[in-house]
C-alpha cells in the first residue's frame, strides 16, 4: 500500500523511502518516534538489567531482516512507474525501554533477581522487545539452558509449560538469519513470554532444552528437520516430518517450494514460488 504514495515520485526519490517504509509499518514508526535507534550494524542493545556485554559483543541481538526493493518483482524492465526504485529497509525489532508496561516490568525484575541468584550473567539476555503486548527476550545461546531452568524453577517465574519451539529463517542475505523461537507459558501467573536465539547459518548450534522441557523433544526435531538447526544434547536428533534420507532443510528460504507449471485454458501458470511477487 505504501508504494502508492511513493509511486508518483519516480525513481529519483530513493532518498525519501524511509518515510514510505514507515507508513507500511506503523509500529516501526511508533518505535522510532519513541526514540529507539535503528541499529545499523552497531552495538549490542543491552537489556534493561544492564551489566556485562555478551560474548561476541559487536553483534546485534536481533539483526535486521531482509530489505525489500521495488514492486511486482520486475527488475531492469525500463519501468517508469517508480515502483522499481522503492527501497524498504529491513525490520529491526526495537529494544524496549522502561517502563515496559503491564506485568513486564515486574517480570523483568524477577528475571534479573533469579538470574543473579543462579549465577547466570546479565548479558544472557541481550535485548528485550515489547511489541503488540508480547514480550520477547533475545537470549545468548550459551546461557539458554540455565536460563530456561531458571524460568521453570524460580518461584516468582514458574514457566511450567513450553508451548512451542520453532525456527524462523529471515532470508539469505540477512546476518544471523536463523532464529530459534521458544514460547513459554506460566500457568501459575498466566503469563506468556517468547525467547529468541539468533544464529549464524554456518554455526547453527543451540543447546537442547529437552532436559528442562521434555516436550521440546519433537519440536526440536522438527526445527532440525525444517531449518537445519542442531540442538546439542538432544537425545535423538533425527528428522521427524521428512524422510530420513532427505537432502536439505525445506523451510529455509533458499530451499525452493517446488511445483510444476500448470496449463489452464491455454495459459501456463508457473509454480507458486516462480510467480511474480509483489514485495
Amino acid at each position, binding site marked *: 500500500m505504501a508504494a502508492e504514495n511513493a509511486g508518483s515520485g519516480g525513481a529519483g526519490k530513493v532518498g525519501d523511502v524511509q518515510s514510505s517504509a514507515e507508513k507500511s509499518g506503523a*509500529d516501526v514508526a511508533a518505535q522510532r518516534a519513541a526514540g529507539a535507534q535503528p541499529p545499523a550494524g552497531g552495538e549490542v542493545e543491552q537489556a534493561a538489567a544492564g551489566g556485562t556485554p555478551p560474548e561476541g559483543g559487536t553483534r546485534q541481538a536481533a539483526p535486521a531482516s531482509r530489505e525489500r526493493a521495488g514492486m511486482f518483482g520486475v527488475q531492469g524492465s525500463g519501468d517508469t512507474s517508480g515502483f522499481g526504485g522503492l527501497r524498504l529497509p529491513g525490520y529491526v525489532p526495537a529494544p524496549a525501554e522502561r517502563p515496559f508496561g503491564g506485568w513486564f516490568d515486574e517480570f523483568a525484575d524477577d528475571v534479573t533477581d533469579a538470574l543473579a541468584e543462579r549465577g547466570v550473567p546479565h548479558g544472557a539476555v541481550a535485548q528485550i522487545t515489547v511489541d503488540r503486548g508480547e514480550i520477547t527476550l533475545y537470549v545468548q545461546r550459551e546461557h539458554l539452558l540455565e536460563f530456561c531452568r531458571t524460568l521453570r524453577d524460580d518461584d516468582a517465574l514458574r514457566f511450567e509449560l513450553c508451548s512451542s519451539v520453532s525456527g524462523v529463517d529471515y532470508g539469505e542475505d540477512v546476518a544471523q538469519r536463523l532464529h530459534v523461537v521458544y514460547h513459554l507459558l506460566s500457568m501459575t501467573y498466566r503469563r*506468556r513470554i517468547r525467547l529468541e536465539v539468533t544464529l549464524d547459518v554456518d554455526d547453527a548450534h543451540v543447546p537442547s532444552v529437552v532436559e528442562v522441557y521434555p516436550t521440546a523433544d519433537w519440536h526440536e526435531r522438527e526445527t532440525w528437520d525444517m531449518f537445519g538447526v542442531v540442538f546439542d544434547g538432544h537425545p535423538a536428533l533425527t528428522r521427524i516430518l521428512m524422510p530420513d534420507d532427505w537432502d536439505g532443510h525445506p523451510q529455509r528460504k533458499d530451499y525452493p517450494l517446488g511445483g510444476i507449471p500448470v496449463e489452464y485454458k491455454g495459459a501456463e501458470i508457473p509454480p507458486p514460488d516462480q510467480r511474480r511477487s509483489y*514485495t
Partner: protein
Amino acid sequence: MTEIRDDAYAPERETTEGTIYTVTGGDWDTLVDAEHDDRIIINMGPQHPSTHGVLRLVLELKGETVEQARSVIGYLHTGIEKNCEYRTWTQGVTFVTRMDYLAPIFNETAYCLAVEKLLGVEAPRRATVARVLLMELNRIGSHLVALATGGMELGALTGMTSGFREREDVLHLLEFLTGLRMNHAFVRPGGLAQDFPEGWLEKVTDFIALMRKRLPDYDKLLTGQPIWRQRLEKVGYLPLDGCLALGATGPILRAAGLPWDQRKVEPYCGYEEYDFEVPTASEADCYARYRLRVAEMHESLKIVEQAAARMEPGPVMVSDRKIAWPAQLSVGSDGMGNTLEHVRKIMGQSMESLIHHFKLVTEGFAVPAGQVYVPVESPRGELGYHLVSDGGTRPLRVHVRDPSFVNLQTMPAMSEGGMIADVIAAVASIDPVMGGVDR
C-alpha cells in the same frame, strides 16, 4: 551394528534413478541376540484402522506387554507452513484450514486472530460472535469423531455409527452456514467471508434441540457400559506432572485435574461473556478423557445457544477497504462469484475500483512487521499460531503449534508397560489428527 549391506535380504542394484534396494525381509534371525530373543518388534501402521490416519507405531513387545513404544509421523506432511509463505495473508486461510481437518474453524480463527493482532485491527462484533458459534459447533463435531473413531477402534461399532450420524448433522449445519462441510475458509482476516444465509437461526435452533435429545444417548450407549469402562478405566494413565513435562493440553490435561482452558484463562473472541463450565476430572485415564469430551459437547451446546442469541445485526468485516475484499459473493447462473452490481461497477463505472479490486486480490495487503503468538482452545488443546511478518504482503513465517503434534508425544508414557490392546485405547484418548500432526 553389523554391516548388512550386501546381504540376501536387501540386495542393491544401480539404476538411472539411483541405487534401488529390494528389501525382502526374513532377516529376523540376523538381528536377534541373547538380550532380545524373546521380544518382537511390530509396526502398527501407517495404514491401520486403529491408528487414527497415517500414524505408525513401533512397538517392542514381550508377550502381550508393550516394553517400548515409539510413534513415527510425517506420512501426511504437506508443507502447509512453507506454502503459506508464498501466498498472501488472506490466501493463508485456505491452507491452514486443511491442517487439523476435524477442527478447521479453529485453525481459521486462530490464524485470523493472529493476522488481526499483527494488523492492529479487530473484527466486528457480529463476526466475533459468529466465530464463537462456528467454533463451538465445530468442537461438537470434532469430539463426536473422537468418540466415533475411538469407539470403532475398541470394538464399539454402534458408538461409531451414532457418532458419525450426529457429526453429519454438524457438517450439514456448517455447510448451510459457511458453504462447505469442511475446509471452509469462511473466517478471514478482518471478519468473515460473508454473513450467514437467510434462515440460519431456525437451523441452529433445530440443531440445538436435536442434539439436546441425542447427546444423552451417549451416556446410555457408552458411559455406563461395563465393557467400555473396563477397556478405558485405569488405562493410559498420565498424571499432571507428566502432562506438563510433555506439554499435553486439552482434555488430557483437564483429565489430570488442571482446569486449564484458554477460553477461561486467557479469553479471546469475547468468551468471558459466555456462561459455561470447564469439565475436569482427576483420574487421568482414558475413561476420564472420554467423559470430559462428552461433557464438553454439552457445554459447547450451551455456548452455541448463547451465541445465537447474541448475534446482532451489523457488518461481518472490518470497514477498512484496504483489508476487506470489495465484493460480496453471490451465486449466479454460472456458479459462485462476485455480485453482479460489483462487476457492473468495476467494469462500467469506476476504474479506481477495478484497480483497487485487482491489487487487493492479487497483491494482498501489507502487514506491519513484527511477530505474534496467538493461542486458542481447540478440541485437542492449545492451538497456537506464531506469525512473523517482515512488512510484506506475504507471511515471512507461519508456525503452528498443533495440539495433536504435542499430545502425541505422550503416547509412550501412556502405553509402555501396558498391554498392546491398551495402546489402542491410549491413542484413541489422545485423539490425534494426523493432518495437524504432520502439517
